[in-house]
């Protein structure tokens, strides 16, 4: 049943993505509003799919690639829509919604039945680890999109090429400040995720730190984001901040996907 709702959300994601790309090219407000409606509907349908799976197992389910992708896509869209309430940034949506569509589509394609969790993971630390960590990922993904747009706009302004400036894009200052705030939120949640994660590790495996590739990469990314947030006061902003945001997200993508597929450890599917 859950896969039915997930499938149902796909056309809504796609329509939203197309509308937002149209919005960026024609700079009219209507496609943006249509896209937001479709995105909200997709969010509800997709949320239903996740809820049904969670209900079947009785806790947050992230023990398969399908669940990870699905939850991540859902949180990215939720984070973007929450941001959209305060900032009217259709352009960011033009990157976020295709990303969400592709993630959800992949989740749909690798759909698998739910497996019950090993008993040693059935404790309160699991949701306390998974929820902030995934929300942190999702927010960093939105920051990644903002930074890409910053670099695009920055390059166009720098090059002074004729026909270079895109009309619909927000100002550099707006993007830079927004990026900083979004990264700060992501950082706070990600930090919580790491702390609760190490507590979870202590409870289930008996050690806070086990030198797992996932742990190492996550801490590296955490350090990168920490540097980004700290160096703003000495003038590392703008392009440099955008590049750090992108680098940090790249580390997370490697740890998130690459390790699941290449070096499956405790974080990737098997949960030994």
């Amino acid at each position, binding site marked *: 049943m859950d896969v039915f709702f997930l499938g149902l959300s796909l056309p809504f994601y796609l329509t939203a993505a197309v509308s937002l790309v149209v919005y960026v090219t024609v*700079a009219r407000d209507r496609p943006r509003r249509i896209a937001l409606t479709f995105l909200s509907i997709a969010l509800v349908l997709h949320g239903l799919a996740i809820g049904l799976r969670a209900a079947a197992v009785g806790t947050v389910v992230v023990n398969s690639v399908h669940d990870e992708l699905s939850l991540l896509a859902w949180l990215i869209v939720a984070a973007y829509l929450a941001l959209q309430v305060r900032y009217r940034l259709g352009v960011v949506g033009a990157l976020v919604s295709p990303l969400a569509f592709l993630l959800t589509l992949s989740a749909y394609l690798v759909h698998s039945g739910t497996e019950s969790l090993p008993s040693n993971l059935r404790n309160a630390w699991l949701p306390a680890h998974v929820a902030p960590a995934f929300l942190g990922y999702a927010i960093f993904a939105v920051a990644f999109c903002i930074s890409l747009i910053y670099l695009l*706009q920055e390059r166009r*302004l*720098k090059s*002074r090429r*004729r*026909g270079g*400036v895109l*009309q619909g*894009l*927000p*100002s*550099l*200052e*707006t993007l830079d*400040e927004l990026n900083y705030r979004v990264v700060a939120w992501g950082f706070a949640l990600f930090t919580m995720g790491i702390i609760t994660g190490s507590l979870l590790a202590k409870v289930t495996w008996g050690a806070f730190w086990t030198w797992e590739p996932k742990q190492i990469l996550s801490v590296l990314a955490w350090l990168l984001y920490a540097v980004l947030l700290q160096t703003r*006061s*000495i*003038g*590392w*902003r*703008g*392009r*440099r901040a955008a590049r750090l945001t992108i680098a940090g997200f790249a580390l997370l993508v490697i740890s998130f996907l690459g390790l699941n597929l290449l070096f499956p450890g405790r974080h990737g599917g098997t949960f030994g």
Partner: protein
Amino acid sequence: MEHDIVIVGLNHVTAPVAVREQVALADDALADANRRLRAIHGIDEAAIVSTCNRVELVTCAHDGDGAVERVRQFMQTHLAKQPLDIAPYLYTHRGRQAVRHLFRVASSLDSMVVGEPQILGQLKDFYARAVEVGVTGAVLNRCFHKAFSVAKRIRTETEIASRAVSVSSAAVELATKIFDRLQDKTALLIGAGKMGELAARHLMAGGVGDMMVTNRTFDHAVELAREFKATPVPFDHFPRYLHLADIVIGSTAATSFILTPPLIQEALRERKGRPMFCIDLSVPRNFDPRVNELDNVYVYDIDDLGGVAEDNRDARAREAEKAERIVEEEVETFLRWLSHLDVVPTIVALRDKAEAIRRGELEKTLRQLKDVSPREREALESLTAAIVNKILHAPIACLKRQDRETGTFDLDAIRRLFRLEESGDA
């Protein structure tokens, strides 16, 4: 009766300012001029528009050529202030052409700077003034309101007004691409060149909060600073203030670079990397182009800005084409409405509608009554026809009387009361 919209006028294209200022109406003379224009024989409705770029006498006339000639004469005798023959500067638009002209004026397609937003407000004001003295009627009311809605439609459906088309406004446009808001930003104007002053003026109008002015001759700096409510800065000390400036405008006659990478680098350090927008409007250039290679600094010289402005002009021209198509479309709709205001088609439509209803209802009844003899059928026919004719007699007589008098209110009302647009047109 005929409703011919006639516009006689002159504008920035047909008449030089020396002529326009002779004809332009003083504010207190407007009401009287409106009344006089309306009083001209053959003129049913009137509205005068008089801005610094145009004077337009918009009328609805029913006496074709004669009325046109009298309106032209009126403009010469009542508006031209000194013995000046304004005939060569006048244009006359009638019918479709006049409607199109009014729509284009409202949409700023006929403006000196195409897309400028003021004209619509001005037009609304002058229309309201004419309404105030009661010289407009059904045709002009509809025509003006349509013009306003066309202007609004063009504003939302095209980008005709959203691009900067001069070097100075391009500078402001770029500033808003770099900065989120200009209110808390400070500009530094170096030198007293004309272009620099113009750009500074545009930036202030664009909302820049604070301004510093520096010049080799300090007195000039003080003078200019007073005009801009800015802070004068001694030329030798300006690098000390550089870090306070978010926007730097260079406009000096210097032959060597006055802004160099080390200077800007120092300022950036103090600014903690907050972005700087450097606008170099001098030839030869004042700012070392290598400054642009620094992070968070954007240097634009006069050619770059000219390029942006030209791109925007091209874009605006493309948008104007789109706008012209919208105007054509709307002129068509308006003329269709106007043609309905003629009496004969209205009477025909009214009769057709009543006849269609009569026939429909009669058939329905006949189908229900079985065994109707031809005679009974004939009786029913003449009964219903008589009822319809009796009911329509009064409104049709009223319409025919209207034909001889002037005014269009009843005609419009009848069309609306009987919903003739919906069924009669097809």
